[in-house]
């Protein structure tokens, strides 16, 4: 399974990379939504995207709408991981096609729980 971590903070990408690596994911990284789209357009289509909201160049919400507009990427699971915690923004992201929403700060267990609910953990970890 491949995870694409999209966050303008290198430190945050490293934290998320450690979590998904421990769960058995391979991972690639992008600093913003545009760079993430470049990965997908180049054929590096992940099973999971972890997406920050506020980023320069292209924000996470725009990235979600762009992914959902392309039917070839319909199987990509999209999870927002962001400090944006206003109710209307959560609703907006989910309505645009995000599957899950995690608010920073988070614990590794919060990410694991969400991935388990989405059926994205290896079976031995979901049990």
């Amino acid at each position, binding site marked *: 399974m491949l995870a694409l971590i999209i966050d303008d903070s*290198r430190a945050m990408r490293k934290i998320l990379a450690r979590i998904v690596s421990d769960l058995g994911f391979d991972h690639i990284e992008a600093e913003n939504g545009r760079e993430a789209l470049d990965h997908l357009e180049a054929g590096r289509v992940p099973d999971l995207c972890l997406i920050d909201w506020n980023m320069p160049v292209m924000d996470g919400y725009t990235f979600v709408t762009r992914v959902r507009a392309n039917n070839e990427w319909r199987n990509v699971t999209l999870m927002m991981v962001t400090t944006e915690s206003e109710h209307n923004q959560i609703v907006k992201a989910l309505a645009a096609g995000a599957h899950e929403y995690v608010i920073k700060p*988070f614990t590794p267990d919060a990410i694991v729980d969400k991935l388990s609910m989405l059926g994205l953990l290896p079976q031995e970890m979901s049990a």
Partner: protein
Amino acid sequence: MNVMIEPSLHDVVSLTQEVWTSFLGYDEPLFEGEPLPDDATVVSATVTVSGAWAGVVSLQVSEAMAHRITAAMLGGSEKVDESDVSDAVGELVNMVGGNVKSLMPGPSTLSLPVVAHGRVFWPHESAEVVRADLTWAGEPVCIAVHVPLEQ
């Protein structure tokens, strides 16, 4: 029209503690502490909230603390440079600021973090409404919220 309201000191400290323990570990709790010494070399990071509520959330730590925070967030095994320090301290204030924003009336937007090596000087048109002088691993950490004088 903006709403004249401010976050409580308790909420800001709780949010900061949550960010600290989530990303810097439970081994070194964040305590109430002394202000940054006047002669300390400081890294400052701010995020601005604009909209129904307006304010600036700032974080100031010593250079040594900023490097320690950065190393912890990167996993401790990587070489830390100045851009990493700006990135890590900026992400911490981003998380505190984003959660302060969520406590205030919305809708509002959160800026990207701005990080500077040096102290923040505030314009006369703003007022400090929350200031928490904390200590982590023996070093001071200052978190503050400023609002425009006329909201």
